């Protein structure tokens, strides 16, 4: 099922399908290793709807929700 990365539940793993590179933020997300085919897991969320933390390529990457929306993932069946 295709969803935005920001919609994962805590602990859920998904495979990146597409990154929206309309602007600089999408380009930065790609540079950080969130490329199509990579596995990404949501490991934390900051209070009051703040940034999210993902595990990708063996490290922790934080993204704001609005930034994570630029990444489309396949969260499996």
């Amino acid at each position: 099922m295709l969803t935005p990365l920001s919609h994962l539940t805590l602990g859920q793993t998904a495979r990146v399908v597409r990154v929206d590179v309309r602007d600089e933020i999408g380009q930065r997300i790609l540079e950080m290793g969130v490329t199509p085919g990579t596995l990404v897991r949501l490991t934390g969320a900051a209070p009051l709807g703040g940034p999210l933390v993902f595990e990708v390529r063996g490290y922790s990457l934080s993204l704001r929700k609005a930034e994570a929306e630029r990444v489309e993932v396949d969260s499996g069946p």
Partner: protein
Amino acid sequence: MKAPATERPTWTVALIGNPNTGKSTLFGALSGVQQRVGNYPGVTVEKKLGQTSHGDQRFTLVDLPGTYSLAPRSPDEMVAVDVLLGRRADTGAPDAVVCVVDADNLERNLYLVSQVLELGRPTIVALTMMDVAQGRGLKIDLERLRRQLGVPVVPVQAHRGTGLEELKKTLAEVSGQPVQVPESPFPSAFQEEVERLGRALEERLGQGPAPPRYLVERLLLDTGGYVEGRVLGADAPGLRAELLAGRARLAEAGYPVPAVEAMARYGWVGRVVEGVVTRPSAPPTFLSDRIDRVLTHRFWGVLVLAGLMLVVFNSVFTWAAVPMGWIDAAIKAMADLVGARLAEGALRSLLVDGVIGGIGSIVVFLPQILILFFFLAILEDCGYLARAAYLMDRLMVGIGLGGKSFIPLLSSFACAIPGVMATRVIEDRRDRLTTILVAPLMSCSARLPVYTMMIGAFIPPSTMLGGWIGLQGMTMFAMYLIGPIVAAVVALLLKRSVFRGAPPPFVMELPPYKWPSPRVVLHRMVDRGWAFLRRAGTIILAVSIVMWAALYYPRPSREQAAPFLAERSRLERERTQVKDAASVAALDAALASLQDRMEGAQKRQSFLGRSGRLIEPLVRPLGWDWRIGSAVIASFPAREVVVATLGVAFDVGPEAAEKDEDGGNRLRDALKAATWPDSGRPLFNIPVALSIMVFFALCAQCVSTLAVIRRETNSWRWPVFSFVYMTTLAYLGALLTYQVGTWIGG
């Protein structure tokens, strides 16, 4: 050339790497004390140069700012690319590049390496954090990595000093040697477009050297337009069409720009790390991960952050008071020593009040700076600072900033100087400048003496709610609340006007936890303290001497001084004649009071005192007379000085406010007794006291803060801007307070 002909040339070596890789630690370990810190002209990037040697081979090291990618999107990010490509005259072309790579995070770090390798400079990979990687159960096959990467790989542990000799030996071998540019990671379709665009550029731009291949690549890849503006300029419509056509052809061929770069480079990274890293088959849960779950928890994490900040804040506020007391005492002792050895006159006054006093007002900030950076260096080095930014990001986004602005702003409640210096963690220029400009609005410890004096003298100590809430305490609380509220409004306004633009991304790594290295912590403290002394200190000293002169000159005329001198000799004569202790004490008090009145009279007719009279019409609407006005002007070097300058203006001497005898003090009584000369009604009342407090809550009466802003922004524009906007705000705030207060009290 002064150097003997046999001496080898000094190689220039650039250091580049991701943030949190220990690059600066490596730079510090290699160059030791032989560092020079400056600025690249026109940008806020710090230029750090160091020296090191291997045998008789010497190296100049250039420490470039930490970055995840060499895709410049701003003048600040362009600096690293220009240095590496040898396009900056002030550093020269590097003869070798050391790329610092975190062994625990190979894949993402190698992305940057892939860009560096294309620059065609001799490159060495310095592998850091091997201990962290091993602690997490990773096995790294170094031989295989060297083979698959094709460049030397040297493991280093800079904070222990291991691997440094090996690194320098390798540097001596490869520096200045020709290199074979490795095979491009890009698909051939992309390479053809780069060549096509390169040829078009050469034809069109004609004269001068063609841009290096790496920049041509960036031209194709960076759709944001920054490189385009830099390389093409405004007058290249034909080239721009060529560029867009190239991008369109690539998209059609299935290599859309800019995604093709990440795909190609991470593809290359995948081939390089193939078989190099062995991860434990079942990843165990590490203590670090369990701690992190608590520290980044939406409830417990915030609680821990609040507790930590309370400790840090309290330490800067209270611990620093002890050494600051010592410094004050030492400066006073020095002033007395010098004062006793010189005859009364301009030289003594200049040395004691201008120079020694000025040095004192610089050094007195060192304890706060050192203590704050002690904690911040620990928090940063162990990896916590990124978590604090993560937790507070949502809150700071509300005022148009990001999570990284939180700690600098909070620190400013103790002192804006280390607060402004702590903004260096903010990469985005607009966010950093906004934070620097609003940080001095936080009520720092120097405002406290002003609040205490005014509240103690004029706010009635009445209580409400059964004695739980006092009016004095409420007033103090309100004063502390003004700062953050006004700062939030100013930050929002700045981000909508001067620093308008899309919010900077919060795309960053939360680095794994590790034990902070004492060497790194110590180095950071010394570095910050020294930077303040050297760069801000000179400005503060200069202002201190100018202020001294404005208060010292012109000297009183013979006629002005005569009545005071006559009374002094009369009192002194009388004192030699009386015998009983009570009369001696009374005469001593009279002499001291005469001294205070003499000083008051002299200061009132000094240049600065006269300017107080000049601005009286301006400060009248605030409820102030010219004496308050000139005391406020004289407190320009530092807010807390106003207590002493009020003492001088009201004839009780600069130290009267500090002596607390018989449950009251002389300054407080003098202020209460002061009247308007025309009507005889009391000068001070609650609205006047409040208007003075509000003025000091919002004003920029602190040379040290302005000097640090000058240093951190590398421009006079921002300290001037700070001073003008804060003084305007302070004036309007004081005006509103007095007028509304008088109307209510009316």
